[in-house]
């Protein structure tokens, strides 16, 4: 074998070794996706008939501006496909970047206990700029609760109840099990969509496929 042939052979071998290492590392690092686990979600966090042909599970954070856009997009779809979507809300507060997200999630749970989860959900998103300011996050949230018609002493009791916190933990565990690292993430049946753009493109395509339209 001449010199250039030997070098070409070694170059090819080196390239092959790099590609094989990349494939092997990717296979080892990739957490094997499992079908999303539905888990138990309180009835007040569900919308639409449970027998609907399409279920959308949304993992959201009340302090995240992209989740506000996601909620608007999801609300539009619920309006567009009345009675055909079963929507399930799951908490995924990103506590490392959003200091009030967990508090908002717990308050929303307590609103749910009083039968006003979705009203408070909408209020939190539409007034997001007000209650996410450091100086007056909690008072602003209480104001919102009053405006939504919630019983404040009852809300306070519920807020301190460890069972409320446990519901948020259960959602965080579920998100972890389903490899939900980003918010908002929508599981349109098996189709994962991150952000409102993907919901309105890939998600809508999946809904149309499921509904046969």
């Amino acid at each position: 074998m001449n010199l250039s042939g030997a070098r070409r052979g070694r170059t090819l071998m080196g390239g092959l070794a790099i590609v094989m290492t990349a494939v092997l590392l990717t296979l080892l690092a990739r957490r094997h996706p499992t079908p999303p686990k539905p888990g138990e979600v309180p009835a007040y966090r569900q919308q639409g008939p449970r027998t609907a042909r399409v279920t959308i599970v949304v993992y959201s954070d009340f302090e995240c501006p992209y989740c506000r856009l996601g909620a608007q997009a999801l609300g539009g779809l619920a309006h567009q496909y009345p009675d055909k979507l079963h929507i399930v809300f799951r908490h995924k507060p990103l506590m490392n970047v959003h200091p009030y997200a967990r508090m908002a999630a717990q308050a929303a749970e307590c609103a749910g206990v009083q039968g006003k989860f979705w009203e408070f959900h909408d209020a939190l998103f539409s007034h997001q700029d007000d209650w996410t300011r450091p100086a007056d996050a909690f008072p602003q949230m209480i104001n919102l609760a009053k405006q939504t018609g919630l019983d404040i002493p009852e809300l306070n009791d519920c807020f301190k109840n460890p069972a409320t916190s446990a519901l948020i933990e259960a959602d965080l565990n579920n998100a972890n099990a389903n490899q939900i690292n980003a918010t908002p993430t929508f599981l349109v049946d098996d189709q994962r969509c991150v952000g409102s753009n993907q919901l309105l493109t890939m998600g809508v395509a999946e809904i149309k496929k499921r509904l046969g339209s």
Partner: protein
Amino acid sequence: MKNHWKPWAGLAARLVVGGILTATGLQKLSAPLQEFAALLDAYQITPPGVNHWLAGVFAGTELILGLSLLAGYLTPVSAGAALGLLATYITALLSTVLRHLPLTDCGCYGDWIHLTPGQSITVDGILAALAVLAFRQGSRRFSLDNWIKETPR
């Protein structure tokens, strides 16, 4: 003894850039690709329809270039390509700053954005400078390139 340190600096630069690109590429490939695609959506440069595909291409390219640099394989080509990739990221980040897009360390898209665009530009700029050093001096120590060039016995 003149410039004796240069090959070692080249090796260090090659290992730093290669190590970081390998780690970031692997991180992107190990998570659902929709998450990196959502970050590309937020940049508003490419159409949402192609971002899922682009996410895979960018992540795969990062990993291959990172491993090539770590091994010192075709170092000038790998370092040049890494420089191109970093220049692409810097340009994209600068465009978000100029267009006032809300990417400021929201973290809303998960683990991908923990630096502000300004911090990311700085980090990418340092990596780009190291890629230039790797391009010029990176293949002289502990590299596959040396083995490829070796005269067979």
